[in-house]
């Protein structure tokens, strides 16, 4: 009966670990919601950091992530198109594919160090462009990989039908292949946006932070996540509460985008 007992033990342990995992999710989300909602006020959204609000931080974080997205999406999607539609199965493609796959897991702090060297140090000041560049560099490999994978799912018959109609290669890619992969690619973009909007490490010494409202990308730029890091370590209660409120808002945004992404994909593939 030993093997039946062993079986039971393993199954119970596995089930237990699943509940431990879920337990932590709830623990984190519940404390975050509890502390966050308690600290949220209407003025949190209408005031800047200097007056105890997060308005400038939200605008700053979204501006940097938005610029990163605007620049990275066309580059990433085009790179994915090259890998799958033009250079598929060549040696160079397989190298680029592997390297950009590896880049998706590169330590984010190192990207900050890299950007510091050529966008902060030469100009002598932290700036919004450097922050956006860091986020863009984090985002690029993710978009390349998802585009590449999503285009791979498009059946080759669709491409052949396009060729039979006499379409040129780039027309087929733009009007048939990309159309068919639209939902998947969009989801990938959404999820990568959710990932970079919550990044802190690559912003610490690129955009740094700003207490005041600014749209001047050449100066220190307000960041929600960097502010959370600073505020949480201040000793006074008000700063900590603001950190909780900001964390709650940030997590709500990130999880919301993730759920939207998942929902969009599911409704398509059923």
């Amino acid at each position, binding site marked *: 009966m030993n093997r039946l007992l062993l079986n039971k033990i393993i199954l119970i342990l596995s089930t237990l670990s699943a509940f431990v995992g879920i337990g*932590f999710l709830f623990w984190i989300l519940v404390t975050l919601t509890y502390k966050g909602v308690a600290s949220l006020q209407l003025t949190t959204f209408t005031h800047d950091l200097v007056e105890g609000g997060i308005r400038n931080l939200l605008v700053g974080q979204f501006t940097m992530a938005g610029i990163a997205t605007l620049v990275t999406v066309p580059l990433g999607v085009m790179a994915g198109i090259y890998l799958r539609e033009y250079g598929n199965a060549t040696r160079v493609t397989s190298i680029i594919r592997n390297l950009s796959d590896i880049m998706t897991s590169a330590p984010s702090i*190192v990207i900050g160090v890299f950007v510091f060297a050529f966008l902060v140090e030469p100009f002598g000041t932290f700036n919004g462009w450097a922050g956006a560049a860091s986020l863009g560099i984090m985002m690029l490999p993710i978009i390349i990989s998802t585009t590449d994978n999503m285009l791979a799912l498009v059946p080759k018959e669709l491409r052949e039908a396009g060729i039979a109609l006499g379409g040129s290669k780039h027309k087929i890619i733009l009007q048939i292949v990309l159309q068919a992969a639209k939902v998947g690619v969009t989801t990938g973009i959404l999820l990568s946006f959710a990932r970079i909007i919550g990044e802190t490490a690559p912003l610490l010494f690129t955009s740094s932070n700003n207490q005041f409202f600014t749209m001047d990308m050449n100066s220190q730029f307000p960041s929600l996540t960097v502010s959370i890091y600073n505020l949480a370590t201040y000793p006074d209660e008000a700063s900590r509460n603001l*950190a909780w409120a900001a964390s709650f808002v940030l997590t709500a945004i990130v999880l919301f985008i993730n759920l939207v992404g998942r929902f969009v994909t599911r409704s398509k593939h059923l």
Partner: protein
Amino acid sequence: MGGRLFKDFSLFSATLSLFLLIGIFAVLFSYAQASLHEFGFNFLYMEQWEIGEDDEGGVFGGYIPIIGTLLTTLIAMVIATPLAMGIAIFLTEIAPAAIIKPFSIAIELLAAIPSIIYGMWGLFYFAPIVQTLFGGNGVGLLTAGIVLAIMIIPFMAAITRDSMNTAPDVLKESAYAIGATKFEVIKDIVMPYSKGGIIGSVILALGRALGETMAVAFLIGSVMAIPQKITDPTTSIPVLLANNFAEAQDLEMSSMYYLALILFVVSFALISMAKVYFMRKR
């Protein structure tokens, strides 16, 4: 004409990521030159981190942050690996169909929470518990390691589950038909089938843990000291960079780049081993 331009632009975009990677490596390497020349490979086991008189020169060794990085990662892996395997087994072999979906989504959401949230939650809610149970200041190796584990579990579990799902049902059913228990099916059918993916997921999680900054920054204590006990505060490469990089000068700055280079090379090696060797797509 337009087609030509389109193709060229796509090729340019694809090679851009290649140049970025080379660029990162080249920048880190060239900025680390001063420190590389001064300390060479001794850097790896020199314990001092002292700025010289009048900010000139100084002695900088990477031993403490390197050890801190390795120890927090080790603690995290020891805790996370069995739990992540358990979750993956639960999701592929045990859970009733109705709860697989919500459970999977919950685990993936756990993976999407920004690391700074883990750090802050860990500092205010988890550190006091560790302090009560194990003593110390609350912040230190153990707290950082445990919270790091919580952070990498969902990531590891999700990839492990995906590769366990590749074991064909026919094989599993045949094993059940000759009287195998669930554990035996997992051990003798699923595991051999998904071995590569599982090892890959563990190495990927390891790479992620090594480079994790924010969760650890809140919890490791950020002290340039060799830990004597598991609850002692110390520092790690990403945390040292996060807190001191921007203010560093000259040789200290170069030593910071040296540390970043070490981190980059090690994680690059680990991740490429995991992705190219163990998780090669068929």
